[in-house]
């Protein structure tokens, strides 16, 4: 399937030297258009139109009630802050997205060797919705003296088989990045578990100074 990128700024999912970006085709003959940063234009003749999302929901880009948007989906390759992107692409379908468009996008990413999951249109999609409260709790526990950072990370690795501990992960991805994602989820859900934790807020403010 031929796909084109309509890019206005850097993509967090596919850098310019990523093979998937390099294998793009010309917009004229593409069956799928991928918007990264650029303002999207409806085109019902395409098999699918993809909009790269950051922390926002797809509804901020498209009206899901409009029939011409039935082939539009959001996507993001999951990435922990400044870590390299993972192999996972979260695809976001809105309430009016047609199955055929979901299928086309699934095939597109699977053919590129990426793993695909489909979710409905919520801020934080699947992973951030689940891990941000956990990382926030770990950072709070650290402040409260529950255990040392090393012991908390080791506990998760040895006790749960995680490849890395929650705190080393957040620190590696950047505490300031963690702040921004937490803040977006906190604004969307209003739940204390998403509120940016002290350490992340402090790191963000330090960076601003």
């Amino acid at each position, binding site marked *: 399937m031929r796909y084109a990128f309509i890019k206005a700024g850097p993509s967090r999912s596919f850098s310019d030297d990523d093979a998937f970006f390099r294998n793009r085709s010309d917009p004229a003959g593409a069956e799928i258009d991928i918007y990264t940063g650029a303002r999207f234009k409806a085109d019902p003749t395409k098999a699918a139109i993809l909009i790269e999302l950051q922390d926002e929901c797809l509804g901020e880009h498209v009206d899901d009630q409009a029939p011409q948007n039935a082939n539009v989906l959001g996507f993001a390759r*999951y990435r922990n802050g400044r870590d390299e992107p*993972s*192999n*996972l692409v*979260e695809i976001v379908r809105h309430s009016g997205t047609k199955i055929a468009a979901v299928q086309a996008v699934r095939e597109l990413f699977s053919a590129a060797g990426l*793993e695909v*999951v*489909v*979710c*409905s249109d*919520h801020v934080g*999609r*699947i*992973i951030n*919705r*689940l*891990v941000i*409260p*956990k990382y926030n*709790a*770990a950072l709070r*526990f650290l402040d409260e*003296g*529950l*255990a*040392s950072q090393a*012991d*908390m990370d*080791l*506990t*998760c690795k*040895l*006790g*749960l*088989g*995680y*490849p*890395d501990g*929650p705190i080393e992960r957040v620190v590696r991805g950047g505490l300031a990045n963690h702040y921004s994602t937490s803040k977006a989820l906190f604004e969307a859900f209003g*739940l*204390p*578990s998403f509120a940016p934790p002290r350490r992340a807020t402090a790191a963000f403010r330090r960076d601003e100074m």
Partner: protein
Amino acid sequence: MTKIIKTVGVCGAGGTMGAGIALVAARAGFATVCFDRSGDTLEKAAKQSIGFLDKSVERGKLDATKRDGIVASMVRTTKLEGLADCDLVIEAVFEDLSIKRELLGQLDAVCAEDAIFASNTSTLSITEIASGSKRPERVVGMHFCLPAQLMKLIEMSPGILTSEEVFGAAWQWTETCGQTPVKTQDKPGFILNALLVPFNNDAIRAVEAGVAEPADIDRAIKVGLGYKMGPLELIDLIGLDTQVRLCEAFYPITLDPRAATPPLLRRMVAAGLLGRKSGRGFFAYEGNTMFGA
């Protein structure tokens, strides 16, 4: 002076955790007294432990002479008095504060003044359990992971009154057994369950909110984060009824909304969907095969 530990007692040694903990102690060369109030479960556990050791021999991880030595070092009893000579007694009886407190009171009467008592509780407070003993300074938290005979991690927690000497001796004992101790405060769920129980609940709430199908939630977590198991598959393994019990233990103490039982979980348990053990939870199982993921 640091207490020298030679003989170890395990209370609830017929249970899932107790049997594994007894193996850890015996394998490290300690005379091990396996105590349980139920003789039948004690016998069953002994057979399973021998089976486990036999497998280790088959796999070349243990030699047969060592196996025989381990088996010989484990004695079984249904009488509390059998623990009289133990330097360290680890309790892994039912997760019930009054049962654990009562047991410690009984151990006071049977064991030497300088014996160390350890609790394998997952959710209860070490300080509250220790209040069942007249020697709370000799009580320490020692939380093994399931299966204890394979998992290296132990969360070690001092209660408010635990003496440094006792904590140090218990810590050293875990290292002698080849385990990896980590230190945590005496707080609900220590580190592991404090992070895991609410996280698993969040995954259930995501299913309930229609964020994604269970299989997609698990795949996202496995591929995106490199976890060996997705949260919903893990809950199926733990048992949905056990997850409810964990929520019921944590929520009233922490009042953390994430620890409250998700309504979907309650409904699934009511419908008899308990996970692997009932053949269906978030996924369907036939034998050991999983469907739906």
